[in-house]
């Protein structure tokens, strides 16, 4: 058992080193044009967002539609710190990332506590409502620049500084995947699988629900800070309902409760629209169809039927072969 674990962590370390080397080669050799290079950071941001949303949607089994709200809180906090602190870039950014994550986590707690009593549809709508509240407060107050947005944020996280973003992607994936395989993670999954049974065996549902909300919000906040220092300008409208749906599409396409899937889907869905520039107006339509088709395929019994047919065909051929 221990050996297996060791083997797994060695594979993971090798995988991390290989992907870091691959990105370094790709960026420094100039194989990627400017266009593609500039997509590296947004891809990373989307990976962090998707993995953190997966903790809530995939493992806790609750749909939240306010993930962009957490992201915006992190983004604004981080940006305000780098704009006003006057510290050297490296320190300001580190401070910004930590503060952005923490403030978002606090909001995760603030939102997590009232929605404890809610499940399913109600929870989805309330988180959507919270996302809209955050957006309209960001528009209404002055220090965020209102609807005009916050501009002139120093661009610390361009593709030239990819190492920092890479570290955060790895940290997010490691922390969340270790967590879901831990005792706490199993408790969270049990809430998803059977709410009443897990309560009956003594799992503190409130505690784990809040835990999932806070951790997820923290990483969304971190992603927001990285995003803010990549684009340089923040507007409340960048963090609307559509942004939350975009993240949800990544999670659904990658498979709910599958972290590797989220990473792959984040890469594909960030790069694909850029590769198919002409079809960009169809992007939203494509997202919608992905959501509907994935759900119908996985849940309406279609998958089982196709698998069964496939199996019986296989059986026929093997029997024939004998």
């Amino acid at each position, binding site marked *: 058992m221990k050996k297996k674990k060791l083997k797994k962590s060695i594979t993971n370390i090798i995988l991390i080193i290989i992907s870091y080397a691959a990105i370094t080669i790709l960026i420094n050799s100039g194989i990627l044009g400017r266009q593609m290079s500039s997509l590296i950071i947004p891809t990373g941001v989307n990976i962090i967002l998707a993995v953190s949303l997966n903790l809530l*949607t995939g493992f806790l*089994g*609750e*749909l939240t*539609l306010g993930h962009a709200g957490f992201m915006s809180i992190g983004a604004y906090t981080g940006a305000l710190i780098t704009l006003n602190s006057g510290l050297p870039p490296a320190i300001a950014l580190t401070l910004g990332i930590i503060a952005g994550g923490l403030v978002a986590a606090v909001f995760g707690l603030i939102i997590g506590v*009232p*929605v404890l*009593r*809610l499940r*399913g*549809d*109600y929870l*989805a*709508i*309330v988180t*959507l*409502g*919270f996302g*809209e*509240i955050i957006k*309209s*407060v960001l*528009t*209404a107050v002055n220090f965020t620049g209102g609807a005009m947005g916050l501009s002139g944020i120093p661009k610390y996280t361009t593709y030239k500084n990819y190492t920092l973003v890479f570290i955060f992607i790895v940290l997010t994936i490691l922390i969340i995947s270790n967590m879901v395989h831990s005792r706490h993670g199993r408790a969270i999954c049990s809430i998803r699988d059977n709410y*009443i049974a897990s309560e009956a065996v003594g799992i503190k549902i409130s505690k784990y629900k809040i835990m999932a909300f806070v951790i997820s919000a923290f990483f969304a906040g971190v992603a927001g800070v990285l995003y803010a220092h990549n684009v340089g300008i923040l507007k409340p409208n960048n963090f609307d*309902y559509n942004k939350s*749906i975009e993240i*949800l599409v990544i999670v*659904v396409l990658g498979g*709910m409760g599958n972290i590797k899937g989220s990473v792959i889907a984040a890469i594909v869905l960030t790069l694909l629209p850029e590769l198919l520039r002409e079809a960009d*107006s*169809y992007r*939203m*339509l494509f*997202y*919608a*169809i*992905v*959501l*509907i088709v994935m*759900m*119908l395929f*996985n*849940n*309406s*019994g*279609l998958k089982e039927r196709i698998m069964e047919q496939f199996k019986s065909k296989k059986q026929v051929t093997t029997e024939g072969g004998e």
Partner: protein
Amino acid sequence: MNLVTSILEQLINGLRTGSIYALIALGYTMVYGIAKMINFAHGDIIMVGAYSLYVFVGMLELPVPLAIILTIVVCAILGMTIEKIAYKPLRKAPPLAVLITAIGMSYFLQSAALLIFKATPIPFGSVINVPSLRLGSITISGTTIVILAVTTVAMIVLTLFINKTKAGSAMRAVSEDKDAAELMGINVNGTISLTFAIGSGLAAVAGILYICQYPSLIPTLGALPGIKAFVAAVLGGIGSIPGAMLGGIILGIIESLSKAYISTKLADAIVFSVLVIVLLVKPSGLLGKKRTEKV
């Protein structure tokens, strides 16, 4: 005296917006009562209604009454089709899957409208031409009078339909217990289709009234009233028809008062705070029944 007039005018504004919310909320509540799901695409059916009115009146130049009837029919058929394609195969699926499908459907309608009609707002004049009414120092616009009249009639007809007709009692039976209703010989699929058709037809009426109030068409016009109407349905108690009406009107008045006396920018935040507070204090809403969950 001035303050009283202004408050009265805001109350009337609120009543007008609120009755549109109530019409939309009825659709949510009816569908929730029967299919036990939130039809996220409901808000976008309002948008489809608004655009179809534009196509029938603005482009094909049909007479207004015919255009209105055609709009309602288009939306009712759309609602039934959405149910058949997307929701019916998922009746036994986990709620999360249904919810995501509904969001996908809503997104689909919006992006299809975006592709067909583009993002630029289309100006569209009101189809209501009724002179405004003066009561003392208060002016009530013609649009307001028509909106209030139409919603009142629609609600009375709907209440009578649900309580007095055979199809209405079939709907109530299915919402009580689907399996038992089926054993009693009720056509469950047909009843669910009918519910979606009526809900979507009401959404079409709401869409027509909505663009008479805000005469400009964009593909996302249904999203915000849709969500607010959902808040109204929750406020009134989801699944309860009088609750939806009451919730819609209360929400409209809250919104219009906070726009006038607190802040225009924060009005949406206040509306959503109402939702959070209701769910915290009384999740079953004002008129809703409390259901205990069975294992």
